[in-house]
């Protein structure tokens, strides 16, 4: 019953989404306020209906209703409750429901908080959202229905893939999807602005909080995914330039560019047409990210051809939305009036450079991901594009971007002075250079990338702090004056500085990977190994039963100069329901680094292959990402960004703008 109710709610949501796609749009075209006002309640009710469908599926998973194909294939009665819940989106059908659920959530939020904006813009944007929702619900119902029944119902399910039975599954996909789908708001507003043919700085003010929200979640989602890979894969790799990762990196790069260009548009009324393009691009790449992965094209052309129904539907959706919005852009974009003028050396100029480099980086990843496919389809020749390619192409672009970064926030709007900024940053540059040289002198034979990376990271972190310092500290001012200046500084400026510091921290963590220590050994209980600054003893190896697996684990003791600093328990789990095993690395954080131990295969003589790693400063990679997200949140909490302010912005728009 519950399941049928969920199924029915999803069908109703489809019907209502079609109404939302057509009626408000028609109202906006004819200037009919009543038709336009359909959009808001429709968006709210769609959210309610999709929530019912989502809850129904979750209920079926929790009570282990194996009469559902989806539950049978992905669940097991003995599975812990948390994985029964997160297992809902641990499969294709369920993850599509989560995707649509988040889409409906964002639509409802726009309906709730979008009061201040012009009716036509909101109606058109919500219509675009309705169109998106209708298409994806249709996709679910026609090709990926999670409510399909199985007769007769099996006694037991096939269990969720063991590698997904991890807390990471509860967090990573929702975060990633909140990021991907969050960009749909910017996309819908871009389409609405193109349909309207009008665009001004206020548009950027309405859209920027949504972009920022999506960006925060995507940043956290990617970081979480990479940490999950790090502790699951058993040897501590965290980024592989695999198409599925690239698929999440591309919208992040485009979204970061959008975030910066929207600032220029909001403050200076410039880069408007370009910002619209980026809004379309960020969501198009999100769609590509979600669905190209799902179509199977990336895995292999042959896998796609063997089951083409879903894939062809997906490609049709991609062509419809990406092609459609870009066509609309090409048609209506030139009609939008360009705005503000600025000198090449200015904050705007720096942000243009930021956009140029970010979009180049994004395009590099795009081509690297899809080129092998295109080449194979055209010539049947197979090539591989892996980490060495990105190191040579993406690397230099990123390096230039990182070096230029500290200059941006320090430059004045409209016309800046490079010399003055360079003078202010000279302390940071000198410190960075000194540290890099120190590292080179200490480790003469290490790779050059490490001191370079550390130098750049120090430059970014200090540069951001100096910029804030310059705004807060005035010569001769008392402590209380300085404090009140710091408090008075807009939170968006603190947010910018925090996000940039976070990036620097991540770069520092990446650079430090070079100094990692790796030990691959055959060990038996009682053996001790030197691992960087620590000594690791494998004290005991034993087995035990888990709820739905059996595991072999080792007790390892980490010592530093004879003193025990930590106990670690790496394990290997065997899941009999799927006849597969997973590696549970034993990880302990010491300072900012981690000792990472994973177990390999056992040998007949009682020994065991063991991998031990010392990864100095490795946690900085993810701490940096969290600082970036925190910076985004700070910026989001800025008074100017609060959504209620949009109403005042509308009235302010009518008045002549004072020069900034």
């Amino acid at each position, binding site marked *: 019953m519950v399941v049928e109710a969920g199924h029915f709610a999803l069908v109703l949501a489809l019907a209502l989404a079609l109404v939302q796609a057509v009626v408000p749009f028609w109202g906006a075209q004819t200037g009919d306020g009543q038709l336009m006002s359909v959009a808001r309640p429709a968006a709210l009710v769609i959210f309610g209906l999709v929530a019912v469908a989502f809850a129904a599926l979750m209920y079926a998973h929790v009570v282990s209703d194996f009469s559902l194909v989806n539950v049978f294939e*992905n669940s097991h009665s003995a599975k812990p409750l948390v994985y029964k819940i997160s297992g809902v*989106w*641990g499969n*294709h059908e369920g*993850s599509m429901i989560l995707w649509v659920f988040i889409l409906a959530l964002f639509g409802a939020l726009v309906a709730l908080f979008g009061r201040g904006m012009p009716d036509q813009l909101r109606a058109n944007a919500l219509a675009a959202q309705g169109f998106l929702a209708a298409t994806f619900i249709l996709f679910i119902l026609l090709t990926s229905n999670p409510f399909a029944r199985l007769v007769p119902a099996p006694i037991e399910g096939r269990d*969720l*893939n063991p*590698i*997904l039975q991890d807390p*990471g599954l509860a967090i990573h996909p929702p975060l*990633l999807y909140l990021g991907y789908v969050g960009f749909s708001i910017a996309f819908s507003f871009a389409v609405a602005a193109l349909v309207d043919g009008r665009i001004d700085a206020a548009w950027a003010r309405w859209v920027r909080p949504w972009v920022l929200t999506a960006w925060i979640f995507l940043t956290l989602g990617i970081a979480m*995914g990479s940490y*999950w*890979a790090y502790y*699951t*894969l*058993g040897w501590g790799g965290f980024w*592989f*330039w*695999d*198409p*599925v*990762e690239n*698929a*999440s990196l591309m919208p992040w790069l485009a979204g970061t560019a959008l975030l910066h260009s929207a600032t220029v548009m909001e403050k200076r009324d410039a880069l408007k047409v370009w910002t619209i393009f980026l809004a379309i691009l960020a969501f198009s790449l999100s769609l590509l990210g979600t669905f190209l*992965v799902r179509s199977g094209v990336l*895995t292999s052309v042959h896998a796609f051809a063997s089951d083409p129904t879903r894939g062809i539907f997906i490609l049709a959706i991609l062509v419809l939305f990406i092609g459609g919005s870009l066509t609309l852009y090409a048609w209506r974009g030139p009609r939008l009036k*360009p705005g503000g*003028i600025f000198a*090449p050396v200015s904050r705007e100029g720096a942000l*243009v450079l930021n956009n*140029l*480099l970010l*979009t*180049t*980086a994004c*395009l*590099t990843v795009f081509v*690297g991901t899809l080129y092998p496919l295109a080449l194979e389809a055209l*010539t049947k*020749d197979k*090539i*591989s*594009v*892996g*980490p*060495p*390619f990105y190191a*040579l*192409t993406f690397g230099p*672009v990123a390096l230039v971007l990182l070096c230029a970064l500290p200059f941006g926030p320090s430059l004045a709007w409209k016309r800046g002075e490079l010399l003055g900024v360079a003078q202010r940053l000279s302390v940071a540059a000198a410190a960075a250079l000194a540290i890099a040289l120190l590292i080179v002198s200490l480790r003469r034979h290490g790779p050059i990338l490490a001191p370079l990376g550390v130098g750049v990271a120090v430059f970014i972190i200090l540069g951001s702090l100096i910029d804030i310092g310059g705004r807060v500290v005035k010569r001769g001012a008392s402590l209380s004056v300085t404090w009140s200046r710091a408090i008075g500084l807009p939170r968006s400026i603190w947010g910018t500085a925090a996000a940039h510091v976070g990036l620097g921290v991540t770069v520092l963590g990446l650079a430090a990977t070079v100094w990692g220590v790796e030990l*691959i050994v*055959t060990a038996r209980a009682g053996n001790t190994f030197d691992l960087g600054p620590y000594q690791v003893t494998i004290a005991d190896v034993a087995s035990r039963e888990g709820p739905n697996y059996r595991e072999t684990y080792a007790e390892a003791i980490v010592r530093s100069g004879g003193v025990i600093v930590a106990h670690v328990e790496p394990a290997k789990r065997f899941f009999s329901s*799927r006849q*597969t095993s*997973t*590696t549970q690395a034993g990880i302990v954080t010491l300072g900012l680094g981690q000792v990472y131990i*994973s177990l390999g*295969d056992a040998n007949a003589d009682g020994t065991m*292959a063991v991998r031990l790693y010392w990864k100095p400063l490795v946690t900085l990679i993810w701490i940096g990402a969290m600082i970036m997200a925190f910076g985004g949140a700070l910026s989001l909490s800025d008074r100017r960004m609060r959504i209620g302010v949009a109403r005042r912005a509308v009235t302010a728009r009518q008045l002549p703008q004072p020069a900034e």
Partner: protein
Amino acid sequence: MRALRILFGTAWLMVATAAGAVQPDEIMSDPALEARARALSAQLRCMVCQNQSIDDSDAALARDIRLLVRDRLKSGDSDAAIKQFLVARYGNFILLKPPFTIETLLLWLTPLLALALGSIAIWRAGIAKRSIETAPLDAAEAARVDALLAGDE
């Protein structure tokens, strides 16, 4: 890289492989040769895996190629010779860094092209704007400026 696909693609593929690539018994006694072997392995694709280097893969084929690379190193081959040998056997597909050929011209030049074309576009947009900025006043505008400056309004 099946496990990874599953993580980021949330369960698109069914079976995960627990990682654990280089085994203790493969490691060479000469650390310099072993270091070269690891560096080479990181640039070679495990051809039955998804975008995974033989250094990261626990597939049987990856192990075979790792051992092959080590055998060749032991017999004194240079890195380039080993790569050449593997390409002759398995094709360019085995190289994670695609060679620079006519076929991959666009792939390698994309970043440069994007930067160049982007810069030109920005430069041209800048010129167009500056010409707006410095367009001379017409007669009516000039008269109005004079009137304003004279304080008539």
